[in-house]
């Protein structure tokens, strides 16, 4: 275990997103953290009656070689903020751009409904590519866990 002073982490700390979670599963080297509730619905007033956001416990897997954690421990899950934005970029922005540009181009040449369908279908190869790149994403989107230590 390496104890470190947050002071030296200022640079990265500014861009961190943190969420409290509970360790719900530990299997060799992979710790699964369940985020408490739906972290984003916390502030929402409709949460008590909102049934639509059903995926309300989020489970995140974190690779952990240190074997430091115990089941049911409350920890803090950390993700760099730009990674979050990057995720939005890959998950939403790129397919959006792909879709729109296909639509614009095809609608010059084809009938409206064909253009529409083509630009919907173009998403399939896009997601296929994402699927192929799955492992390289795995390397980038790495969470880490911080343990609270009362000093």
């Amino acid at each position, binding site marked *: 275990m390496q104890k470190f002073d947050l002071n*030296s*982490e*200022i*640079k*990265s700390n500014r861009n961190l997103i943190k969420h409290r979670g509970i360790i719900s599963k530990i299997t060799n080297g992979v710790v699964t953290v369940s985020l408490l509730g739906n972290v984003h619905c916390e502030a929402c007033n409709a949460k008590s009656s909102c049934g639509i956001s059903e995926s309300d416990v989020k489970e995140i897997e974190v690779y952990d070689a240190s074997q430091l954690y115990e089941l049911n421990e409350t920890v803090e899950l*950390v993700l*760099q903020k730009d990674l979050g934005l990057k995720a939005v970029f890959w998950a939403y922005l790129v397919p959006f751009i792909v879709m729109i540009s296909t639509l614009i181009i095809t609608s010059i040449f084809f009938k409206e409904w064909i253009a529409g369908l083509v630009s919907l279908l173009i998403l399939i190869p896009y997601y296929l590519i994402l699927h192929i790149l799955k492992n390289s994403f795995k390397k980038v989107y*790495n969470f*880490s866990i911080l343990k609270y230590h009362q000093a």
Partner: protein
Amino acid sequence: MSTSSIIVSASPHIHADRTSKKIMYDVVIALIPAFLISIYIFGFGALIVTSVAIISCLLFEYLIQKYLLKTTISIGDGSALITGILLAFNLPSNLPLWMVIVGSLVAIGIAKMSFGGLGFNIFNPALVGRVFLLISFPVQMTSWPTVLENNTVFADAVTGATPLGIIKDGLMMGETMTDLSSKLPSQMEMFLGMTGGSLGEMSALALILGGLYLLIRKVISWHIPVTMLGTMAAMTGIFWLINPEQYVNPLFHILTGGAILGAFFMATDLVTSPMTKKGMVVFAVGIGVITVVIRLFGAYPEGVSFAILIMNAFVPLINSNFKPRRFGAPIKSKIIK
């Protein structure tokens, strides 16, 4: 020697003698020339509107603090006084007094005290008050007494349009600038303040004098006024060069429609403007651009008020993206993987 009266407090133990109150009263002083001019031009009406605005602003602040928020009364700090004056400066001098009072209530009650009072408001109170009135009572808010006809008599039905109003109207009717030029006051008249308009925006000369006072006293810095007026001049200048028959010259834009009042006194409001010089420049460019867009393409002939309010909303964003340069570059530290 008894030590029981020894004070212990943390450093620093000395303090500069500039206080918020002094800053506020400097602004009041700076507004005096424009006020005098407005009394000269509009007479009793200007005096009445201004005093009603001031009194009601102070009164509302007092009542809200005393009975609603139950906090300490701070009407002496001068900020409500400024709000009152500037609100009045943005109103026609013959506005029914109850509207002036409503405007003060909106400025103080909604735009300022609802956010917690001095320093916490996001939007410029006086402008919120003015825009509220403008939207609610467009007729009264856009009828001005004609200049110099009645500088002794209060209340007057004769209305004259602002130079920008004349232009907007004229262009809409398909007239060209050459046709319109005869209806417009000369630039010298505008500089001195002999045109129609809100009571405080008349004389560019008086306002610039006040602005210079603020600059000298270091209450404001040059960044906002200069950038804002510069942006306006540059943008309107381009359009003017392209088609002088459809667009008026930049000087005209700067001298009219409260541009100078806005640039020196309203956009510079400490509370609602950015806190770094870089941020101020961005803010002022935004105001300039929006003002010109509204004036040239929008429905309103003026537009400074709206532009300032819109950019007020962006101030938090500007503040967090244009932070002061931190001393020392960070050492490359191990980043959490």
